[in-house]
């Protein structure tokens, strides 16, 4: 394979200039003519029935343009098809302090806040559940009537023969672990600007990782066809999972805008970010692991209780991952998992970095150290003795195609100075090790369908511009940059030449969102496919024009690194950035490349656009489904 000219090179991120100069716009930077300020009324009770809501005083306050309650948007929603248990505003019951009761759109934030004070809500408090273990025992006053004993979801898996596994073990330990709740605290608090257009359409600008799911949800809640709704993701100041499902303010802004027939912006205070939450749940792990005399793990049994908060969110996936990944990183012949996702009267948990795996992994790795101690083994050694041999399928059906862990461990041992440090540092200092892994790529779409997970369009027009239309959501992780790099690499253009239009449902095709480390894999593969198709069409046209074979043609922006058999080169002019201008001039004065052997004489250099008829200029590709890690369980 020819060496890459763009991929793997340290390039400035495509969105960096806007961010560092302040020209880039985050959702809260956006304004629209006639824009109103939205504020949400939150529940002061952890669990209560709503007897009545009176908004008349708030509506009468000068400057208030709309007041919305549950009756304005009663359709339930949720990120998982099995978990449509949230309404944008509570219909008859509030389930945590901070739950959404009503919202006001007014001509200033001050008036909106004042109006919230004028909304009268008659609450009938109910017993509230704060501890997941207590909540599971609840005989009445369940948080959702449809979820008996406040259990949102439970999983019971057993693979292999657990009894035999523990019988084979020389060392067996049972430990109890508790991991606290964490929230993402992205630097940018959530913000949404919903614009009601005079033609009856709705445009929603929102700080989200998942414009597509937001698009669907706004459609369901506002009872408008998706075609009448446009979702745009501006710059996003960090997500980490906290913007990977629809957050109440996004729908609230849309409902208010529709009701007021005006643009409405809501930006959460930092405090409200914590009420919206969707962070990593409290996880209580009871773990039993057996180790043979040889230091091989023979059996693992885990009981995991997760404190999910008041709504479903991603919860069933969190607790599934907690168990599904238990059996994967090491060679474990027998594994049993009992996982419970429990509802409590607290802000809802969700996906956060290493979704579901982190807390149980912490418990497991701590346990492995304790067992290594029992077996008088070095913590590194016990891990070495339990490695998988990839490619393989683990006992719980996870397909491992590549592994890398043995090399990783050896590198860490070497570079940490493990042998010199372990157990030899002064009091209060030490070295330790733990291994972790996670599922990337999101093999299954959240809403099951056979449609592609991602689609990109590439346009090359007579202006010699390459434009990539992608639904993928840049949230600071570099997804825009990597897609530009891939397209530039394949088409042989410099990355500055590739214009990118991203995450605007009116212009860009569907991408499922930025979660599960899926964008480079999914959207990246789509970019690769589309760019190859585009290159094929262009080169076919070039070949036809010059009467040569397609495989003798190539696209390039530099005059190096071309196979000798290439006779015709489509040369993309360099993008006229200020820095490059001098470079272009220098080249034209002293064409060093022209003197390179083997390159020029036999080759024709074409400047784009050349005088051909325009070629078909849109190309679509969809990614293949990942086989990296397909789950065995639904």
């Amino acid at each position, binding site marked *: 394979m020819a060496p890459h000219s763009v991929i793997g090179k340290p390039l400035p991120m495509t969105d960096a200039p806007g961010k560092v100069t302040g020209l880039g716009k985050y959702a809260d930077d956006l304004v629209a003519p006639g824009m109103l300020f939205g504020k949400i009324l*939150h*529940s*002061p*009770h952890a669990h209560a029935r709503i007897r009545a809501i009176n908004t008349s005083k708030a509506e009468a306050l000068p400057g208030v343009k709309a007041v919305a309650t549950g009756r304005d948007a009663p359709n339930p929603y949720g990120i998982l098809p099995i978990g449509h248990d949230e309404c944008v505003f509570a219909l008859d019951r509030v389930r945590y*302090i901070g739950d959404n009761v009503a919202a006001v759109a007014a001509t200033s*934030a*001050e008036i909106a*806040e004042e109006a919230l004070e004028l909304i009268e809500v008659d609450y009938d408090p109910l017993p509230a559940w704060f501890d997941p273990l207590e909540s599971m025992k609840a005989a009445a006053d369940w948080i959702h009537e449809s979820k008996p004993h406040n259990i949102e979801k439970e999983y019971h898996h057993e693979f292999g023969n657990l009894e035999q596994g523990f019988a084979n073990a020389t060392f067996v330990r049972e430990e109890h672990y508790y991991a606290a709740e964490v929230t993402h605290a992205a630097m940018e608090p959530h913000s949404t600007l919903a614009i009601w257009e005079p033609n009856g359409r709705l445009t929603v600008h929102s700080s989200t990782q998942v414009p597509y799911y937001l698009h669907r949800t706004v459609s369901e809640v506002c009872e408008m066809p998706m075609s009448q709704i446009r979702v745009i993701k501006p710059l996003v100041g960090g997500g980490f999972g906290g913007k990977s499902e629809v957050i109440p303010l996004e729908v609230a802004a849309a409902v208010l805008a529709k009701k007021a027939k005006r643009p409405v912006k809501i930006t959460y*205070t930092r*405090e409200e970010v914590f009420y919206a939450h969707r962070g990593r749940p409290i996880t209580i792990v009871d773990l039993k692991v057996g180790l043979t005399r040889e230091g091989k793990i023979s059996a693992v049994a885990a009981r995991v209780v997760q404190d999910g908060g008041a709504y479903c969110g991603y919860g069933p996936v969190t607790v599934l991952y907690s168990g599904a990944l238990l059996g994967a990183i090491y060679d474990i012949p027998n594994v049993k998992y009992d996982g419970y996702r429990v509802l409590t009267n607290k802000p809802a948990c969700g996906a956060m970095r290493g979704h579901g795996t982190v807390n149980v992994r912490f418990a497991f790795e701590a346990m492995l150290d304790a067992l290594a101690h029992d077996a008088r083994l070095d913590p590194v050694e016990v891990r070495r003795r339990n490695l998988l041999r990839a490619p393989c399928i683990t006992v719980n059906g996870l397909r491992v195609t590549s592994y890398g862990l043995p090399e990783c461990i050896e590198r860490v041992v070497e570079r940490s100075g493990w042998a010199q440090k372990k157990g030899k540092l002064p009091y209060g200092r030490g070295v330790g090790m733990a291994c972790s892994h996670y599922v990337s790529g999101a093999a299954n779409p959240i809403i099951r369908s056979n449609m592609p997970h991602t689609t990109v369009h590439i346009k090359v027009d007579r202006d010699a511009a390459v434009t990539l239309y992608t639904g993928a959501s840049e949230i600071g992780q570099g997804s825009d940059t990597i897609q530009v790099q891939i397209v530039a690499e394949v088409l042989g253009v410099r990355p500055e030449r590739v214009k990118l239009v991203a995450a605007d449902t009116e212009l860009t095709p569907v991408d499922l969102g930025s979660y599960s480390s899926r964008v480079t894999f999914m959207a990246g593969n789509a970019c690769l496919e589309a760019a190859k198709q585009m290159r094929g069409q262009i080169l076919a046209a070039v070949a036809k024009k010059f009467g040569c074979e397609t495989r003798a043609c190539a696209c390039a922006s530099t005059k190096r690194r071309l196979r000798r058999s290439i006779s015709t080169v489509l040369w993309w002019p360099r993008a006229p950035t200020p820095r490059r201008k001098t470079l272009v001039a220098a080249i034209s004065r002293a064409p060093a490349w022209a003197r390179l052997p083997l390159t020029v004489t036999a080759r024709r250099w074409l400047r784009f656009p050349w005088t051909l008829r325009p070629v078909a200029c849109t190309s679509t590709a969809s990614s293949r489904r990942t086989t990296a890690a397909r789950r065995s369980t639904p």
Partner: protein
Amino acid sequence: MTMPASRVARPSTIEEAVRLLADNGPEAVIIAGGTDVVPNLQMKLFAPRVLVDIKPIRVLQGITIAAAGALRLGALTTLTEIVGSPLLQASYPVLVSAAATIAGPLQRNMGTLGGNLCLETRCLWYNQSHFWRKALGGCLKKDGDVCHVAPGGKRCWAAWSGDSAPALLTLDAEVEITGPRGRRRLPLAQFYLNDGMNRIALGRDELVTSVYLPARTAGRRGIYHKLRIRDSIDYPLAGVAVTLEVDRSGVCREARVAITAVNPAPLLVKEASEWLVGQRYSAELVDRVAHAAIRTGKPLTTSASTPVYRREMVRLFARRALEEAWKNGNA
């Protein structure tokens, strides 16, 4: 979070400011740097009709030499000025040491010495948004009748959370207050009332105009240590200031130890002066004084950090500060 709608008055003289305060009574709040007042206004802890912005009052600015070699610090002297003052660095290092730890550079640029001496007391149950407090039902200090720190009690335990005050206590500083009846000077120790609700001896119609540092404490060795969650910005959760005068033979001639953030007032550790004067350094003596410091402190559940931890940190800081001041001179 929005600010309450207040009128901003900008007096240019002390007399004008006093008149505004007297005219508006409890409806007026003084604002200088705003680093304490503004977040509290956003949390709707108070909603004054008038904000009296004293920044234009020139005479409240700057560091000058006063009668009898004392140093006068105007109430509007910024914390950044204090940190950068060569005079203070040379003569009153403990104050520089403390001021350098207040919040972050941005807040020190805006925040003033007078403001730092008049901070609101702080508590986990008080420094919260309007919504949060409403959901809780308020507390003794604001909108309620229950103290969540000491339920059943009728006293507010909100913690004094300033850094400059303990340092100034160890320098025997005096505070000058101006009101309708003219000027008065008060030893700083008497300025603090050790009551979370009524924290300072300042009338509604008065303002702090200056701080005086006596000549006799100039040149004392001194250092300040504080506990906070984020070292870049936070209020103290415990703090200890120490000044010592040690003669050539290593005998202590004068000593002050003050603690902060563990009571509703910054407090001098009384035993410290008695026990240390006339003594040479010994680890045992330092331990004993450190123990006296934690007996003076009464940390309660006013912050996210536990009282036990904060007490132990008072002991540690007292020991460390005494050792450093004694052995190394000015740190």
